[in-house]
């Protein structure tokens, strides 16, 4: 798998393989894609973001991160296919071309590299980061409870051994801080999408409160449009709505933070996985998942492009 053309997108890959793929992908993308390092992890691994840009200075931008929970392997697998699809469709497909001609797109392919590596080497079901914090022998924090959005509130655990541990303080996780700093410093993100996998959902804020976001109606309509388009590919049915009413209450999540920062189009995908396979979705479903997710995502990205604010 020495270049992005011969890379097997229908398989799961280790972190090293993905990082090697990134370099060959950037090299073969004719200048459309570049790789940025936005931080390092607790175990000192680099955290990379792929930037898709056709030029311009500080253009309005879209952020998509994949696999913040380490064991959800289908998320990074989908991201690789998605990245490759964007490059191959640029100049051919009008949605992709219009999008990249007006906005920058940032993909964080592996959001929790330490955890991801740990799932390949030690514990396939690991979900959290791999950080150590004083006062406990249990490792790791749930990075999706560590953002500054009602941090430590209901729907997160103060028990360091729990899989939903919110951490000792806001942004304690370097993986979270890297996102927060990057998005904040950029200052012109118009959409923030966090891609997870389990139980087929498309959600938007809020998770920490039952209060409806001020853009509730628009986000509901857009969600419906997105999951309808997604279902047209392979028939996969999604539920949609605010996190709290669609799945459960959760505090400290990424999209709640993003929305409170003023990023209106904040969404969280839970990709296909009925539970029959746990987080071990068979590899022969990777491409199908990626295909349908691409269609669902493009509905949202089209809307973002056509509705500047």
């Amino acid at each position: 798998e020495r270049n992005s053309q011969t890379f097997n997108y229908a398989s799961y890959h280790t972190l090293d393989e993905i990082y090697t793929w990134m370099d060959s992908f950037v090299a073969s993308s004719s200048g459309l894609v570049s790789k940025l390092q936005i931080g390092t992890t607790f175990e000192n691994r680099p955290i990379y973001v792929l930037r898709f840009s056709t030029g311009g200075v500080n253009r309005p931008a879209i952020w998509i991160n994949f696999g913040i929970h380490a064991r959800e392997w289908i998320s990074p697998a989908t991201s690789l296919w998605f990245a490759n699809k964007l490059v191959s469709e640029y100049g051919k497909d009008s949605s992709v071309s219009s999008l990249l001609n007006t906005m920058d797109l940032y993909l964080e392919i592996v959001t929790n590299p330490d955890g991801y590596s740990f799932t390949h080497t030690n514990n396939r079901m690991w979900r959290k980061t791999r950080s150590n914090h004083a006062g406990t022998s249990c490792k790791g924090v749930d990075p999706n409870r560590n953002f500054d959005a009602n941090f430590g509130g209901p729907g997160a655990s103060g028990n360091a051994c729990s899989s939903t541990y919110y951490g000792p303080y806001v942004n304690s996780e370097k993986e979270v801080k890297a996102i927060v700093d990057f998005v904040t410093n950029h200052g012109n993100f118009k959409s923030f999408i966090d891609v997870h996998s389990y139980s087929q959902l498309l959600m938007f804020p809020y998770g920490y409160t039952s209060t409806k976001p001020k853009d509730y109606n628009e986000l509901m309509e857009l969600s419906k449009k997105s999951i309808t388009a997604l279902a047209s590919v392979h028939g996969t049915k999604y539920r949609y709505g605010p996190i709290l009413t669609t799945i459960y209450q959760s505090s400290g999540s990424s999209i709640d933070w993003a929305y409170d920062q003023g990023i209106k189009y904040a969404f969280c995908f839970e990709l296909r996985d009925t539970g029959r396979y746990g987080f071990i979705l068979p590899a022969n479903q990777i491409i199908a998942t990626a295909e349908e997710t691409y269609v669902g995502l493009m509905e949202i990205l089209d809307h973002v492009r056509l509705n500047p604010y």
Partner: protein
Amino acid sequence: QKTFIGDQVLRITVNNEEQLALVSSLQEQEHLNIDFWLEPSKPLLPIDIQVPREHVQSVKALLEFNGVSYSTLIEDLQALMDEEEKEMVLSHHK
């Protein structure tokens, strides 16, 4: 490498707030080491839990005793992982 031989994943459906509270309380019983894949939220929404082999029978008994319905989503988690491992190795050879 941690193994999950005999670990099961149960899908639980609770019918009322009382049953919801009962299942939620399993989270606090640390000795059971239950991993909530889909956390309790409200009646009629599924809850998925991964139960270590040594506690499968007692957790099932508790659910049955309290009239909480469940089904076994994954009989043996390790068997699935072995399949996945095989696919990864095959893919590497390809």
